[in-house]
């Protein structure tokens, strides 16, 4: 199986207010097309691990490799374009740019990448919006959408550059059960029909149970789900 993400003994400390080890020897390998849920008690270090995996946090020990590229030790200026090309994000709060239209929001990462023409970018953005069922909202200001719709737009945006991996921090944490179900179904479809890899931090037990693989953390360590 092709490994999209590999970590080797990732360890992290916080020094404020006092030294404390938040991640302890995290070694994890994620296969392509895997739909992985990361669970654990509040404060066990899930979000912290996600920030390390997403390359936004570079202050850790150990190694990180995504899509065959070793990322440990690289500077933020190199990591930013890497994120743009290889990683998509979905957060609990949808974090769309409120002054821009839905379509613009989805297009921005692709425009930043600058690989295809604007017309093609737009076409691709519509395509992603369609997969998420929100193409009718394309020309609305993103702040005018409902929470569920916004989260779907955020997923479309995460998909626009066909990333190797999508990382989510409590993607359904702010949604009602209906919209949670919708998001889950989309993820399920993406992983099974498009071979998309997804890592999602979640407190939603049902969501976790239905995903392909559940990794459980406790007190900064992985205690379960290393191999399925």
């Amino acid at each position, binding site marked *: 199986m092709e490994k999209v993400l590999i970590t080797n003994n990732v360890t992290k400390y916080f020094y404020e207010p006092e030294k404390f080890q938040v991640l302890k020897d995290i070694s994890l390998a994620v296969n392509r097309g895997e739909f992985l849920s990361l669970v654990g008690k509040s404060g066990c270090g899930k*979000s912290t691990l996600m*920030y390390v995996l*997403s390359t*936004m*946090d570079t202050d850790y020990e150990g190694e990180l490799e995504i899509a065959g590229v070793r990322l440990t030790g690289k500077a*933020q*200026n190199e990591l*930013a*374009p*890497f*994120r*743009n*090309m290889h990683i998509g*994000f979905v*957060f*609990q*709060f949808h*974090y*769309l*740019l*409120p*002054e*821009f239209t839905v379509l*613009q929001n989805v297009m*921005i*990462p692709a*425009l*930043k*990448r*600058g690989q295809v023409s604007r017309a093609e970018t737009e076409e691709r953005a519509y395509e992603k919006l369609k997969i998420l069922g929100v193409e009718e909202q394309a020309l609305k200001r993103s702040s005018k959408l409902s929470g569920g719709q916004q989260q779907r737009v955020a997923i479309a*945006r995460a998909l626009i550059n066909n990333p190797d991996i999508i990382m989510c*921090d409590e993607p359904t944490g702010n949604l009602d059960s209906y919209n949670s179900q919708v998001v889950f179904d989309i993820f399920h479809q993406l992983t099974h029909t498009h071979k998309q890899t997804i890592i999602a931090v979640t407190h939603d037990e049902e969501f976790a149970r239905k995903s392909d693989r559940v990794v459980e953390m406790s007190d900064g360590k992985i205690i379960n789900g290393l191999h399925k």
Partner: protein
Amino acid sequence: MKSNGLKLSIEIARVHLFSKPKQTIIAMLGVTFGIGMFIALVGLMTGLNNFTEEITMTSSPDIHVYNDVTEPRKSILEKENPEGFNLVHHQKPKIESPKLRNVNKMVELIREDERVLGAAPTLSSQVFYNYGPVQLNGNILGVEILEENKLFGLRAKMKEGQIEDLLTNHDGIIMGKGLAKKLNAKKGDRVVITTPQGYTMTLKIVGIFQMGIGVVDNVRSYANISRVQTILQQDQSYITDVNVKLKNRHLSKTVAAELQGKFETRAEDWETANATFLTGVIIRNIITYAVSFTLLIVAGFGIYNILNMTIYNKMKDIAILKAMGFAGGDVKSIFMIQSLVIGLVGSFAGLIIGYTLSVLISKTPFNGGDIISLEHFPVNFDPRYYIIGIVFGVATTAIAGYMPSRKAAKIDPIEILRGQ
């Protein structure tokens, strides 16, 4: 790839600017006001400076050669015993004639110098002008009228008559316009002059001139040298002043020093003679720039504040942009572009406002009174100041925008994302 990033930054900056139009306009108005005032002030101040400089320069020589009788005189004791400690009580000033020695030779030598445009020997006398019942205090200048014209462009200042009329009329005078008006005398009239020594003579007005400066036009007349020598009851070699004009005015100091050494008499350059006037120019410039800088700094603080506020409100956006692959430099450029656009548009509007104000000021009637003949404010429209204005405006906004933009570039997305 890079230009693509810039294009996107511009697009994002544009959306930010247009989504808060009120804020954007207020920031721009700050710059507009600063630059507009700068242009109007600098136009008026330099306009006034140039105007006064021009009339001062046309009516005063580059170098004035004369015999300085007020200079402190060494006592005989000091001359004899220069090293010693000398004490002379109650030394009386010696009666010394202001007459220049060997004037003809001096003038000849000065005129030979390549740097010299012209040298005009003159002498003058205090006189009372009498015409009918009116008696006025003034002076009369004995000149070689053609050389005087070469130095001060008299021909262009003539309101009535010709300068050559003086050559053919031995008892003719060319009178200042203000003086003639006060005397109520016209060209062709005869006026009586009296010297403080009591000498009286009747002279004929052959022309009227106007320099545009009250202190000249209201008191002065030109006559032939021989006439003034007669009035003063002096012989034909009696000349007290030589006025010199140079081809390049800025050489005045050096040439004056040379002349002073060569002829052992006082030679004063225009900068020394007009020191107060030049100080005035400097003070006016300082005021202009100080006021404009203050306005621009205030505008700069406005931009700094507004940009800081924008960035504070856009923390989440910045975090998400960074998560999506915008590097610190990309974020910085988004906000720098905003401040530069504010600066450019604001400054440009400022130039227009400044120009409009300048035009209005230049059309405002202004009575120079007796001192200077002036109908409107003189305003300078030198494009150089417009270029300085736009450079100032953009530079101020760039500096004011740089600090908040750098702060935005350094925002740690994790802190923002976790904060929720």
